[in-house]
């Protein structure tokens, strides 16, 4: 791999040389935590009820992140900055550090997380206005932001795991923010338990790496992988187990079921946690430990195939949803699967590039959906329609986001999606060497094209149902306040331009910054491939327009018959989990154990018959005396 990773030796030198900002990047995750303390204990006394504290802290973090990214970019990449302190000792020769590993990937993630978090917090000023747990909401958002940043900066797997679990609990807390309603707390529990299920393989994977490498430190582990110190079996096992965590967090099949339900939370939360940041943690994890995955073709193939499978699965589901947030949720699952598939075919940079662009337009779409929901007080598109007239800002920004997602040039989504498809195609065509199987590359490309078509179609459907035609809801909707439309326009702007960061042939491209896998692989643009994907996207949009331009009385998708039923029921997966796993354990197994009259044998022994006790006593004494003298 690149010099960035081999720069470990100079690490401590670079900590000073990196300059003040890079050297003190640990401040970025620390600040939100400080804000949490202030908000929890003093929040209610502030005029803004604590919101301003969170926004201020996140702003500083954001500023630092941008400075670091810019200086790195100006410096043409720059070294990895490593710093750590010993946290606590662990036995004779071990210890756990608390450290930072600041490289391209971290810098990018910093900017993504802090920007979206900041915008969401500003947006929430309007959206959450008057909420009964307004102060707590901001505290939780800041715990989340801090934890996510900690996950990103972590230089060892244990620290990463801590961030990983903390974002999980924040997700739980925020999904269940309106816990007075039982479905919301149900969704929160489902999200936590489902992702936790993935966390166990992740934890075991960390242990596998630790057992082999005797360290949690990511840099050292990667070194050992590159030096070939770790056996293939170990690496395959570790990679597949770690990917289990990514499956849970990034909502990949078969653990994707929690994400749509997670839409029970406030919409800004969905934008932050369930679109732009936390759900990308799984992708980030694979990228962070990419050398481990690269060392094992089996693991890479698994990643790619799970990704390919999930992207199609979720895109199909997105077509039949009536709840606008669920459309976006399934879309998120599908797009995350794109990133996974990209990593799986070895195109790490393309995957992260898509993560980067996706964050903007998906956050934009969620916030736009939130704006709509705020106006019509319903999540259902069947109660929307015609909002274009009432909410011009929301409409325009939402449209930009949709087009970006659909992959129309020159918007952000096009560049990243196309890079992924191109890479997959090249792997399939064996024009570039790949760690995984070429067949898998072809599969990813084929499924990716189909998914691109579906993506364009369902976004077209959503836009038409929401904004075109006549208003079908109650009351008279109104445009949202500036605190809400402002962030929308910022994100819309980013969705317009972010794609150029990865313009093929420009400098060394996005990959030179990030340096995740295939660093040497310069992205190429194939005009034919571009043409194919643009045509497919346009076809999707066109089909959507044809079917939904005039809102039909009967959903045309019903013509799919049994397949539609299957989709509406989410492939019956939820049913299966509930009836096959959760209920049996929760209700039957535990009841069987819990209510069984324990101590049957003891009950027999404790008959209350003194003479039986005495018999046992004497027998015991005799036997013991015999044993004690014998031995």
């Amino acid at each position, binding site marked *: 791999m690149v010099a960035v990773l081999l720069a470990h030796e100079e690490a401590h030198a670079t900590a000073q040389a990196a300059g003040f900002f890079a050297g003190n990047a640990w401040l970025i995750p620390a600040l939100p935590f400080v804000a949490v303390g202030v908000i929890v204990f003093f929040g209610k006394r502030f005029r803004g009820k604590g919101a301003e504290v969170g926004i201020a802290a996140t702003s500083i973090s954001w500023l630092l992140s941008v400075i670091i990214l810019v200086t790195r970019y100006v410096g043409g990449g720059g070294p990895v900055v490593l710093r750590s302190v010993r946290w606590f000792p662990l036995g004779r020769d071990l210890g756990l550090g608390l450290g930072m590993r600041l490289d391209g990937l971290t810098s990018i993630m910093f900017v993504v997380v802090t920007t979206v978090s900041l915008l969401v917090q500003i947006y929430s000023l309007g959206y959450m206005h008057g909420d009964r747990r307004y102060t707590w909401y901001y505290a939780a958002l800041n715990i989340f932001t801090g934890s996510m940043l900690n996950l990103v900066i972590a230089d060892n797997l244990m620290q990463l795991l801590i961030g990983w679990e903390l974002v999980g609990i924040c997700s739980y807390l925020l999904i269940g923010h309106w816990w007075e309603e039982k479905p919301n707390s149900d969704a929160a529990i489902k999200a936590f338990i489902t992702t936790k299920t993935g966390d166990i393989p992740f934890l075991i994977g960390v242990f596998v790496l630790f057992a082999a490498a005797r360290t949690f430190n990511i840099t050292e582990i990667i070194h050992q992988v590159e030096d070939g110190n770790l056996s293939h079996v170990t690496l395959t096992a570790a990679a597949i187990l770690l990917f289990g965590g990514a499956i849970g967090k990034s909502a990949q099949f078969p653990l994707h079921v929690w994400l749509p339900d997670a839409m029970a939370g406030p919409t800004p939360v969905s934008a932050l946690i369930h679109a732009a940041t936390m759900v990308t943690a799984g992708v980030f994890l694979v990228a962070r430990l990419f050398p481990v995955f690269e060392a094992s073709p089996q693991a890479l193939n698994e990643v790619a195939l799970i990704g390919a499978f999930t992207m199609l699965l979720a895109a199909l589901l997105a077509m039949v949803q009536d709840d606008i947030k669920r459309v976006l949720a399934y879309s998120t699952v599908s797009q995350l699967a794109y990133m996974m598939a990209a990593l799986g075919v070895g195109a790490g940079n393309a995957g992260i590039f898509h993560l980067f662009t996706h964050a903007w337009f998906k956050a934009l779409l969620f916030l736009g959906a939130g704006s709509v929901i705020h106006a019509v007080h319903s999540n259902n598109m069947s109660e929307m329609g015609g909002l274009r007239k009432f909410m011009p800002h929301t409409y325009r920004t939402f449209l930009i986001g949709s087009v970006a997602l659909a992959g129309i040039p020159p918007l952000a989504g096009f560049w990243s999606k196309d890079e992924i498809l191109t890479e997959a195609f090249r792997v399939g065509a064996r024009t570039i060497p790949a760690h995984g199987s070429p067949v898998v590359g072809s599969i990813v490309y084929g499924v990716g094209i189909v998914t691109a078509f579906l993506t364009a179609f369902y976004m077209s459907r959503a836009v038409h149902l929401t904004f075109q035609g006549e208003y079908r809801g109650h009351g008279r909707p109104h445009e949202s306040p500036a605190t809400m439309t402002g962030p929308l326009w910022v994100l819309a702007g980013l969705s317009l331009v972010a794609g150029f960061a990865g313009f093929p042939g420009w400098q060394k491209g996005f990959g030179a910054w990030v340096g995740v896998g295939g660093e040497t692989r310069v992205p190429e643009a194939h005009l034919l491939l571009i043409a194919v994907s643009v045509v497919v996207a346009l076809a999707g949009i066109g089909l959507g327009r044809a079917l939904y331009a005039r809102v039909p009385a009967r959903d045309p998708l019903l013509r799919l018959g049994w397949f539609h039923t299957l989709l509406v029921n989410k492939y019956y997966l939820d049913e299966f989990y509930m009836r096959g796993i959760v209920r049996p354990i929760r209700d039957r197994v535990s009841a069987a154990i819990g209510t069984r009259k324990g101590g049957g044998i003891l009950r027999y022994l*404790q*008959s*209350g*018959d*003194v*003479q039986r*006790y*005495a*018999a046992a006593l*004497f027998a015991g004494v005799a036997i013991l005396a015999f044993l004690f003298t014998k031995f």
Partner: protein
Amino acid sequence: MSLAWVLTLGALLFSLGIYGVLARRNAVLVLMGIELMLNAVNVNLIAFDAWIRQGNATGQIFALFIITVAAAEVGVGLAIVLLVFRRRETINVDEVNLLKW
């Protein structure tokens, strides 16, 4: 005279006492079994005393203590038996299972 003979007699009486304690229903008979066991202990004490033959006859004195304790035990034991009999009209041990919950 062999010490082990006397000790064997003690063991025999002790075991018979155990049998009595374990196999008898009647509480007074159980008490008799206990008397047998206590006597077995006395036999051992006296035998060891005779074997060691120290000046102050420790074994004999302990035997005396045991006889005293046995007397106290029978007194209290019979009092309990009488009390149980008065309450329950029976002194069969296996019908008195207060220890069971």
